[in-house]
């Protein structure tokens, strides 16, 4: 039988082993998120010094930068799950992709709003149509497009395929957001923290930023696990309904 020949990791891709695992992990990560955010905000507001140019307004960074990073990370993760769902037809991958989207959209929205509120005192404007800001706005529309497409098509399998396809095609936008400040002249400044290991930031500012980033990660894990549980229950409900209908 094929079930006995399954590789062990496939066990964790099934809903029935995911559910109790999520039950244990979600509260853990929510607690972690709260602790990290409290420590990170304390350091960001009481330990980190004022900036030599911007004074206090740079403290929006401790929220803006993690939110912007999360908006891109979550999209990459969503696209990865969408590929797994399309190619290997793993149901749990589709549930994960679907559950990631609203949280990703929320972080994108937070990044845009906090960016506007930071831009007003520093640049002198809430919004400009430069490459960084425009591509981040496009990311919000991609998230909304994925969610909209998913709910607009009544047949779930077809909805999942169409939405996954959109998510995968849209992944091209992520490197554009990240590198826009390098490729083109933008009003948005370049990256303060780069993969090559340099930071142009005082270490306590950097520590606060990292703590807030981990807090956002922990929050994302907790809330996405919970949403995935809800989706599993909803789909189980539909399946049970269908089986009752067919019995009659």
């Amino acid at each position, binding site marked *: 039988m094929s079930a006995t020949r399954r590789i062990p990791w496939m066990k964790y891709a099934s809903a*029935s082993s995911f559910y109790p695992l999520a039950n244990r992990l979600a509260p853990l990560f929510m607690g972690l998120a709260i602790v990290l955010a409290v420590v990170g905000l304390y350091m960001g507001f009481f330990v980190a010094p004022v900036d030599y140019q911007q004074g206090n307004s740079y403290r929006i960074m401790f929220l803006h930068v993690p939110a912007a990073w999360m908006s891109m990370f979550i999209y990459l993760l969503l696209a990865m799950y969408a590929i797994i769902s399309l190619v290997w037809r793993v149901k749990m991958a589709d549930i994960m992709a679907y559950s990631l989207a609203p949280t990703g959209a929320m972080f994108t929205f937070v990044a845009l709003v*906090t960016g506007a509120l930071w831009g007003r005192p520093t640049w002198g404007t809430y919004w400009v149509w430069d490459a960084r800001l425009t591509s981040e706005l496009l990311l919000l529309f991609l998230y909304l497009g994925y969610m909209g497409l998913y709910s607009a098509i009544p047949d779930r399998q077809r909805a999942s395929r169409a939405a996954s396809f959109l998510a995968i095609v849209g992944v091209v936008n992520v490197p554009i957001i990240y590198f826009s400040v390098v490729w083109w002249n933008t009003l948005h400044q370049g990256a303060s923290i780069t993969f090559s290991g340099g930071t142009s930031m005082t270490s306590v500012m950097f520590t606060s930023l990292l703590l807030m980033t981990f807090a956002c990660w922990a929050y994302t894990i907790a809330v996405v696990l919970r949403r995935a549980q809800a989706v599993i229950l909803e789909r189980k409900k539909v399946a049970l309904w269908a089986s009752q209908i067919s019995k009659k």
Partner: protein
Amino acid sequence: MSIGEFLDMGGHGFYIWSSYGIALILVLIETFLVGRRRSKAKKELEQMEAEFGRADNQGMNG
């Protein structure tokens, strides 16, 4: 440093506190909505199972 001075943030208080305020509200709303969606689905599934009999449902408690 007084509380008033802290809240003023050198004249940038409005921008900083509305940023953090909006984010906090969104996070609370999302947490609430997800929790509600999950408990609603759980309740409805349990009702259906009570009516139709249990389907394969190992490990789904909690």
